């Protein structure tokens, strides 16, 4: 395997948590629910995933319970205040971030820097071994890498080709009309998709800690939750663009390792800044482009306070 293939593979792996978390967040935002606390959500999924994997020696179970923990966490800290009680959305998002940060470290204290083995999650694409270069680049990965890649296609199909997807977009554009006019169960679907957001965010954290890093550490996400938020903005709420955005940032996130391996004459501190500066830069460029080609594609009720009292 040459260096290019190796780092292509590393970038795919680094992009997977971003893609999972961003897909979940985009689904939530489609219904008008802005959750800025993905960072805390991913940390919860990460710590539960690592602990379960260490206790049961089963990374599959770790990923599953990490995802479920994320869903339960987000339902309690975000769905209850925002959907059921009609709170403003940013504050519960910060609460998700802070509580996730504190709780995950409290839970993970005893498991810090214990490595986990996730070899058993690696699957091979059928028939890929006959193709020479491609098999090295995309042939053998943990299954979440493929799952994350397929998911945006499923979401894209659902949102534009099914009645349920149209219902969801109707909720995001105008919850009043969706509830009173079209008779859609706005509140129930909002709660459900907060759960889905939590599931995918928790899975993202678990994938990051169990598979990519292979251990729990206090700041294992290192801002990836906020990068996922930037990926959603970059996508313009189009699921397939999430893949592009996530892989761009996945590539930027491994620059530190790449620079170390190729002995670039640049400090690793500067290479580490690139994904964060890149996020700001991409949002600025995207906004310039948006100015030229028309308005925002954001769901109209995104971030608005919706109190449904009946």
């Amino acid at each position: 395997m040459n260096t290019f293939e190796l780092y292509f593979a590393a970038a795919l792996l680094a992009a997977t948590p971003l893609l999972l978390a961003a897909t979940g967040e985009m689904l939530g935002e489609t219904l008008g629910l802005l959750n800025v606390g993905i960072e805390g959500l991913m940390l919860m999924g990460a710590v539960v995933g690592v602990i379960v994997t260490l206790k049961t020696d089963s990374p599959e179970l770790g990923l599953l319970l990490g995802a479920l923990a994320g869903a339960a966490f987000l339902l309690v800290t975000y769905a209850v205040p925002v959907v059921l009680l009609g709170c403003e959305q940013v504050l519960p998002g910060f609460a998700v971030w802070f509580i996730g940060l504190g709780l995950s470290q409290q839970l993970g204290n005893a498991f810090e820097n214990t490595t986990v083995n996730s070899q058993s999650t690696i699957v091979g694409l059928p028939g890929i071994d006959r193709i020479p270069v491609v098999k090295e680049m995309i042939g053998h990965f943990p299954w979440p890498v493929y799952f994350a890649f397929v998911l945006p296609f499923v979401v894209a199909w659902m949102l534009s080709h099914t009645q349920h997807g149209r219902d969801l977009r109707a909720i995001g554009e105008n919850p009043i009309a969706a509830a009173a006019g079209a008779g859609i169960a706005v509140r129930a679907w909002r709660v459900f998709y907060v759960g889905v957001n939590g599931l995918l965010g928790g899975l993202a954290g678990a994938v990051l800690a169990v598979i990519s890093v292979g251990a729990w550490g206090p700041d294992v996400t290192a801002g990836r939750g906020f990068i996922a938020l930037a990926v959603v903005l970059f996508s313009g709420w189009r699921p397939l663009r999430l893949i592009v955005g996530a892989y761009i940032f996945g590539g930027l996130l491994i620059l530190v390792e790449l620079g170390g391996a190729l002995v670039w004459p640049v400090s690793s501190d500067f290479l580490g800044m690139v994904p964060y500066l890149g996020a700001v830069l991409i949002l600025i460029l995207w906004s310039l482009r948006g100015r030229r080609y028309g308005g925002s594609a954001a769901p109209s009720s995104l971030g608005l306070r919706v109190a449904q009292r009946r």
Partner: protein
Amino acid sequence: MSATSLEAAPDQSTPPPAHSRGRWVWAKVPVSPARSWTYRVIAIVLVLVGAGIYLGASVHVPDLFGAIFAQTFTTAPNIEELVVLATPFFLTALAVLIPLRVGLWNIGGEGQFFAGAWLATGLAFWLPHLAGPVMIIGMLLAGAIGGAIWVTIPMLAKVFLNVNEIISTLMLNLVIVLWVAYWLTGSWHYQASTGGTLESRLLPAQSHLPLVHLEGGLDSGLLIAVGITAVVGVTLRYSAFGYRSLVVGAGRPVAKFTGVRTRRILVTSFLLAGALAGVAGVLQLAGNSYQLTPGLSNNTGYLGIAVAILAGNSILGLGVMSCLLAAIMLIGQTVQIYGVSSEAVFIVIGLLLLFNAIGEALSQYQLIRRPRDAPLEPADINVEAPFDLLDVETQLEISPELADDAAFNRGADL
């Protein structure tokens, strides 16, 4: 009265049976500050009591709370430590509160804190022979400039391109941590540091803030912080700028309508916020640690967000909440010897934010009884834009069109 409503009206002669008298619904009640504050204080008390119960149940030490109280609040050095801990909160909370008044989130207090501290450290190292007062004033100015520079890119991106400021300010926090690490491993590295600890050389002695009281390490930084907070508080309350920032926060069409220059207010608010966070960094640097370290901020940049939110746009509340959060942090340090992780403080503060938001929402609603067959009112499903999420770009785009709109101009004639 129309025929349909006559039919729908209940029979007045016989009272309906008790079970069908109506159903409980959430109904909106007029917002009153007293009601809102009551709910929010209840929320804070609930969280603190809950945290206390959890602590009592998980840590088995006889007379735990007595020990915590004795180690935290009784002796003069402890109270001084509390005050020292509270000092940076005043300024990092102002750095969130001022943009919040115009409806924008500054999550970059942590980054601006370090940018200010970095530039001040640079000044002290590059011009080490400045006389004491000149040096200190220079460092405070450098801190303000550093913090303001660090907020400039997100500010310009928000005001002119409507780039989400939550993400951009936060991303720059992560950047400055690496930038500081670069200098600490490089030319500012403290040779005598043990075990590869990242820390800078000690600052020259004349750059240290004078101590007010030697015993607990109480420095004049507190006086500076309180002074700045008071000045900013009075400015926000009584100056034209403070009033205009509230107008902008009420919604960009309102600002346009009243002739306030929105962009100027947004730019000023952000720069002021960055400068204050930068000064907080200098106070911590010159008053407390005397060297630049990655742990200099002690997360005060992030926790300032919580202080500002809990304070609810009140300078007095900001002082109280700064002390409350400092007390929580101090208790957190005290209970670390009982196996509670240092980051558990974040759980308490996250819960405070959550319960505060819930309390604020609950204070606007009340359970009332409504007849079971009452028709669905438009107000039953209610969408409102909170002042802090109004979209700058949309507002700015709407405004010029509105200016030509006849209906809009009719309003101007009134």
